[in-house]
């Protein structure tokens, strides 16, 4: 009881010192609860929609699912009348829609440009004006009723700047057409998609589905059960259709959906785990410092009869209380985190509107994680505290570094085990995904812990090196200048996207500050007197800062570790991403001879073969190769993806990188197989295999070659287009490559090609460079999203830096007082603390980058060459990370530096 009282009082007394630790717990817990809140809210919203849809509809009629090889079928709308006649039905709602993404209805603005959502699709279907709670509601006007009337969702109306009553110009499968906008609707879960709705009869006409229906929704008459309704409906629907029990369907979709949500939550939790891991270091650090500061008190307690266990308990109780406070705040922060993640996804593409749902599980997890994590990380310090000798109470010195040997041995063990686990995870094939992930996660954690423990060994010398004025000045100058150079040469130069508009000015500012500071340090050093931003670094202040940073390597290492982890992860992601881009560019440059690429960039769907037919007539095109995709069934029953192209001309468009066999014989019932796939299935050149085509005809194909370059097509099997056409009547292409005649300009031919593709909604024609940029853009988008998620970890790391500096200023109160007493000015005092923070942060960032690049190297080596073939460093990101870390040091030091400068000299000296 006393110990608990003591713990509580200790917290109250040192609340200032614990604030940042509590914040670190809050950040970690906040991310975890945010993930839960987001996932639960999504699941809640969608269950609501499913359920409210189910409350209106008991059954639905639609075409039965297609077996492999079955031809597409249609459902005649005569079934609607038949269903209406049944006494069991109260309501019969026929619906038609277009599922094919390339024939949507797109609004054209005044300039004739298509108004499209960023990322999500435009959806179009018939609507009978019925509102469904939490799924669809009329916002303004009325529902559509005639062939020239349309309803769109509010977001689309805003984006296209049109209002109810306006005549709106649409691009439709039949060319441009004008509709009257008679109303707008809201879809709470639109996730950024745009909606274009017509009444049923008009939609049939507009979609080219006269006399057809896709789905018929049925509501049972009063007193009729769903089963009775279904039995009755089954008697009147044609054989190609099936009647579905809506409740069962909804249960199934809910299950599917919740499974998806589960994955989504786990991905978020993985990032939350990283942030939490950083918090663990901060908590550990704080308690280690607090124990050190209280060593006399602990010794006294031991002397007067406190057992080691009681001491341990009091520290752990203090940790638990900190964890508890952090958990409560973290729960609150969870809502903010959920909001932020939602906003990020909304900006990146789309995300449904959801409420904020908090469940008991979330609350339990928050407390478990908050208290558990804090107690766990305080274990070490608590254990050390319990071993403080009672004689410590009699001595006046603070506790020194103990257990150096054990720390180094522990570090080596952690590092070794961590690296072995990482190696196993990356290079040992044939493991279960869950085992693999655990290996990688535990391996990475142990490696970080190992490096953190071992960095005591090299923190001193490195910090002494970085801290030298000429080194600091030169590095800042060089790094700042090279960031600018990289931005404008290797990088994208002037900004073009939303993200780069944010980062561009920041990067320019950071590099400018670095250059100016570096210069002023160097000038001050050579003149022997302070000059400009970095003047103090070259003087006595810089000296003192360097000594302080180097004095306790253990402290420096611990402070830097939080930052190291954050920077290492950013560097890993950046390097893997850069390598992916570089490999992709390489293989594209090597493998792609086409000058123009015609494909559906956004929908990734197929488009009518008419397009390629029309292109045949464009002057200046030398070669044209169509690529079509479908499925094959192998002898073992596996249904696999397949590509077909015109052998003979296709090679001039795409180089597959044949590694065994050749292209010879492809046209003669041959087959090309991706090397990895061949390995997996044990296929060799010359093997024959029997495959079924979608028309259920079998063919015996011979493996004529193995290819390794799959960056453009990304399929396991390739066959000849002639063979394809013998079995598959669908003539849609997914990709058309074109080579241009020698001597003609790409621009002019492209203009002619674009004139054709413009008539096919969704299809783009890109030249080589545009194609490359588009592909790289997707990788960049992913990296940005991952970095945003890592941002939480980086923020936590930043808190950690502020935290340790605050604590060490408190600890050095007496020393700071002495410095002030002998004439150090406040500004000088601030500079000492500031440069110390900068040096420590630079150290952390450097170690982080080395680790991150090593991790990335391991990952790149482990990832098959087909995906990443070589390593490339993201210089811009790396340099930017180092400079931001230095700047973070300045910001982190601001508060503690003020405190140090404001210390009352007399009070400071009399503190014992």
């Amino acid at each position: 009881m006393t110990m608990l009282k003591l713990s509580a009082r200790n917290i109250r007394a040192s609340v200032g010192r614990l604030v940042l630790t509590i914040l670190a717990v809050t950040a970690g817990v906040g991310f975890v609860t945010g993930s839960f809140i987001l996932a639960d809210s999504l699941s809640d919203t969608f269950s609501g929609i499913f359920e409210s849809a189910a409350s209106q509809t008991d059954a639905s009629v639609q075409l039965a699912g297609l077996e492999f090889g079955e031809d597409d079928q249609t459902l005649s709308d005569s079934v609607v009348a038949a269903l209406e006649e049944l006494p069991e039905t109260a309501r019969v709602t026929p619906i038609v829609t277009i599922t094919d993404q390339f024939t949507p209805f797109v609004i054209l603005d005044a300039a004739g440009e298509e108004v499209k959502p960023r990322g999500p699709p435009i959806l179009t279907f018939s609507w009978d004006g019925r509102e469904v709670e939490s799924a669809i509601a009329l916002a303004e006007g009325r529902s559509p009723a005639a062939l020239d009337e349309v309803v769109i969702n509010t977001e689309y109306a805003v984006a296209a700047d049109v209002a109810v009553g306006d005549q709106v110009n649409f691009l439709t499968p039949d060319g441009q057409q004008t509709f009257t906008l008679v109303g707008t609707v809201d879809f709470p879960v639109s996730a950024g998609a745009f909606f274009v709705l017509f009444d049923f009869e008009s939609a049939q006409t507009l979609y080219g589905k006269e006399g057809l229906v896709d789905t018929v929704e049925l509501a049972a008459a009063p007193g009729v059960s769903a089963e009775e309704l279904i039995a009755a409906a089954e008697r009147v629907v044609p054989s190609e259709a099936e009647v579905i029990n809506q409740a069962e369907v909804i249960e199934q979709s809910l299950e599917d959906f919740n499974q998806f949500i589960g994955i989504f939550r786990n991905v978020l939790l993985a990032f939350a785990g990283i942030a939490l891991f950083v918090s663990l270091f901060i908590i550990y650090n704080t308690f280690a410092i607090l124990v050190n500061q209280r060593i006399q008190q602990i010794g006294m307690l031991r002397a007067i009869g406190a057992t080691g266990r009681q001491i341990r308990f009091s520290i752990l109780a203090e940790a638990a209380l900190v964890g508890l406070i952090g958990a409560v705040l973290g729960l609150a922060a969870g809502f903010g985190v959920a909001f932020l993640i939602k906003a990020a996804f909304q900006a990146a593409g789309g995300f449904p509107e959801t409420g904020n749902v908090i469940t008991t599980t979330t609350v339990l997890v928050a407390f478990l994680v908050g208290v558990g994590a804090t107690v766990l990380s305080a274990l070490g310090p608590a254990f050390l505290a319990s071993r403080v000798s009672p004689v410590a109470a009699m001595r006046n010195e603070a506790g020194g570094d103990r257990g150096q040997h054990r720390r180094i041995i522990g570090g080596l063990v952690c590092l070794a085990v961590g690296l072995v686990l990482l190696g196993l995870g990356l290079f040992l094939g044939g493991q279960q995904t869950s085992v693999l992930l655990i290996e990688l996660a535990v391996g990475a954690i142990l490696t970080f812990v190992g490096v953190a423990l071992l960095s005591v060994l090299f923190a001193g010398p490195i910090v002494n090196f970085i801290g030298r004025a000429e080194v600091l000045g030169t590095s800042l100058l060089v790094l700042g200048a090279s960031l600018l150079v990289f931005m404008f040469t290797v990088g994208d130069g002037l900004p073009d996207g939303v993200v780069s508009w944010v980062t561009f000015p920041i990067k320019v500012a950071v590099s400018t500050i670095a250059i100016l500071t570096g210069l002023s340090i160097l000038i001050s050093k050579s003149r022997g007197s302070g000059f400009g931003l970095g003047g103090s670094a070259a003087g006595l202040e810089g000296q003192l800062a360097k000594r302080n940073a180097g004095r306790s390597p253990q402290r420096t290492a611990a402070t830097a570790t939080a930052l190291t982890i954050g920077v290492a992860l950013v560097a890993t992601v950046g390097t893997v991403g850069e390598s992916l881009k570089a490999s992709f560019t390489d293989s594209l440059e090597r493998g792609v001879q086409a000058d123009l690429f015609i494909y559906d960039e956004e929908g990734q769907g197929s488009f009518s073969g008419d397009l390629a037919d029309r292109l045949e007539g464009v002057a200046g095109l030398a070669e044209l190769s169509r690529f079509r995709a479908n499925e094959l069934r192998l002898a073992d029953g596996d249904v696999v993806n397949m590509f077909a192209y015109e052998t003979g001309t296709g090679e001039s468009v795409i180089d597959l990188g044949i590694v065994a066999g050749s292209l010879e014989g492809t046209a003669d019932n041959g087959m090309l197989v991706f090397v990895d796939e061949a390995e997996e299935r044990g296929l060799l050149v010359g093997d024959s295999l029997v495959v079924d085509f979608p028309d259920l005809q079998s063919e015996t194909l011979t493996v004529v070659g193995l290819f390794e370059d799959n960056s453009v097509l990304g399929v396991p099997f390739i066959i000849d287009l002639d063979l394809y056409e013998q079995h598959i009547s669908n003539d849609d292409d997914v990709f058309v490559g074109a080579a241009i005649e020698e001597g003609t300009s790409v621009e002019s031919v492209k203009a002619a090609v674009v004139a054709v593709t413009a008539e096919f909604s969704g299809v783009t024609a890109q030249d080589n460079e545009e194609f490359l940029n588009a592909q790289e853009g997707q990788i960049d988008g992913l990296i940005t999203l991952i970095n945003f998620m890592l941002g939480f970890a980086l923020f936590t790391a930043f808190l950690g830096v502020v935290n340790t500096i605050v604590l060490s200023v408190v600890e050095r109160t007496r020393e700071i007082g002495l410095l002030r007493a002998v004439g150090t000015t406040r500004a000088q005092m601030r500079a000492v603390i500031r440069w110390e923070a900068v040096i420590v942060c630079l150290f952390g960032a450097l170690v982080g980058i080395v680790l991150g690049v090593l991790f990335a190297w391991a990952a790149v080596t482990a990832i098959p060459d087909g995906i990443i073939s070589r390593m490339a460093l993201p210089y811009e990101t790396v340099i930017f990370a180092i400079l931001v870390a230095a700047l973070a040091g300045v910001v982190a030091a601001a508060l503690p530096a003020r405190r140090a400068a404001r210390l009352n000299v007399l009070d400071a000296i009399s503190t014992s």
Partner: protein
Amino acid sequence: MTETIVSSTLAARAETAIKIYGHGDTEVHALRGVTVGFERGQFTAIMGPSGSGKSTLMHCMAGLDRLTSGETYIGDTTLSQLSDKNLTLLRREKVGFIFQSYNLIPTLTAKENITLPLDLAGSDGDQAWIDEVITTTGLGDRVSHRPNELSGGQQQRVAVARALASRPEIIFGDEPTGNLDSRTSAEILDFMRRAVRELGQTIVMVTHDPVSASYSDRVLFLTDGQIVDEMSNPTPETVFDKMKTLGD
């Protein structure tokens, strides 16, 4: 000084206590075979030049540190045979401490600081005794104040009261008045003497100051890790004279 000591009248004793710090080149012989006993109900002062081993002797006798060889006893208990845990329990029940810097817990009130050893042991202690101890401190209602609201003398009285609270076999103090001015020192020493005379406690204290030593019943002189002399019913003058002769 080697006469057999009757243990029942002794609160604590040491037999040929040897303490060596460090190894090889850095070896320091802090105690070179000290044999000494402290009688119940007596106030003993230990004097000697800096580095003579006074603190070491106290730490070892109080069970805070272990001897290199030899034996120390609290009452009839042999300290060298106790586990760390039992040593802690022994300190909790049988030994009190007064530190030079008051070493009070700043976040606990004076009263809570006084009862801390009992609370640590999870016992209520002898309430009448505690009341008596608190009354003797003369703090009145200031016992519910935090240490930083008390004067140095008051804080040290709290520290002495804390040592008395569990009614230990013996109380050790390492220069308990070293941080205090002479008037406050007198006040504390008087308080300690009353604890011995009126409450029947046993106190051993290390001091540099002949005046402080004169409050005790017996003074031991330590030089270079050995007891070189002792004196009963000291006065400041006799102690001062003895110090001068030892200094030669």
